[in-house]
């Protein structure tokens, strides 16, 4: 079983994850639609998961993959609750534009 990192190198995976994470941050800041903001958060979580798997292969250790498993479960729970909150916001306000949600602004 040869190591894939011998051919690609860990630094390429680090750069890919960094760029994916930055695209996620850009999406959170750029869009007004709350569903797209949730999708951007998913992209960020996936960037971190990818780096976990890369370092799990780098250290030849299974624990990184166990962590990815846990973070997937947490992401599933987070999306379910987030979408439920969005549905109830939509019922009350009629839109999910995050710029309308400033009742707590003071």
């Amino acid at each position, binding site marked *: 079983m040869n*190591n*894939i990192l011998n051919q690609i190198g860990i630094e390429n995976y680090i750069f890919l994850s*960094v760029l994916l994470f930055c695209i996620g941050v*850009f999406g959170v800041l750029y869009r007004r639609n709350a569903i797209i903001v949730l999708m951007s958060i998913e992209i960020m979580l*996936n960037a971190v*998961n990818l780096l976990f798997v890369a370092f799990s292969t780098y250290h030849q250790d299974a624990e990184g993959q166990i962590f990815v498993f846990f973070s997937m479960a947490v992401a*599933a729970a987070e*999306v379910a609750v987030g979408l439920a909150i969005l*549905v*109830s916001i939509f019922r009350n306000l009629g839109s999910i534009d995050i710029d309308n949600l400033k009742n707590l602004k003071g």
Partner: protein
Amino acid sequence: MSTIVIIFYFLAAFTLATAFLTIYSRNPIHSAIYLVLCFFSIAGHYLLFNAQFLALVHIIVYSGAIMVLMLFTIMLMNLNKEDEVHKPRITRIGALVVFLIMSVVFITIFINSKTITGGYDTSGEDFQSIKVLGKVLLNEYLVPFEFISILLLTAMIGTVLLSKKEKKNE
């Protein structure tokens, strides 16, 4: 350049492009579909690492469950039209500047970090097949594994409570 490297660069470009199109396209349905493609290409990266279990779980959980949930919500709210107003120009430029600065800073940090000398060690033993992962998960990580089930149960109850219609008692 070997085949593996070519596959890696193709997959990486595909991942980044679909992630960007998720954010850029105006129609939420198109965003969701681009996000599914992005998740599939990330599963391809996992397969490159020979992490079969994670690749399968990733496709089932993300491309299956989460994206169907999101698409249902988009349909439910009737959002499949392109009427979103842009943020003010200054906010958009700010977001772009933050994106550029963050990527430049991170990439410079990692370029200048200590480089790996020599090759990567290959232990030769199997560490990521489903058998080994199951043993690690149910021996060392049994307690977190059980707590995850409690978390999922709590999330389910919370979701039902949140999305239930409130009774109008007047």
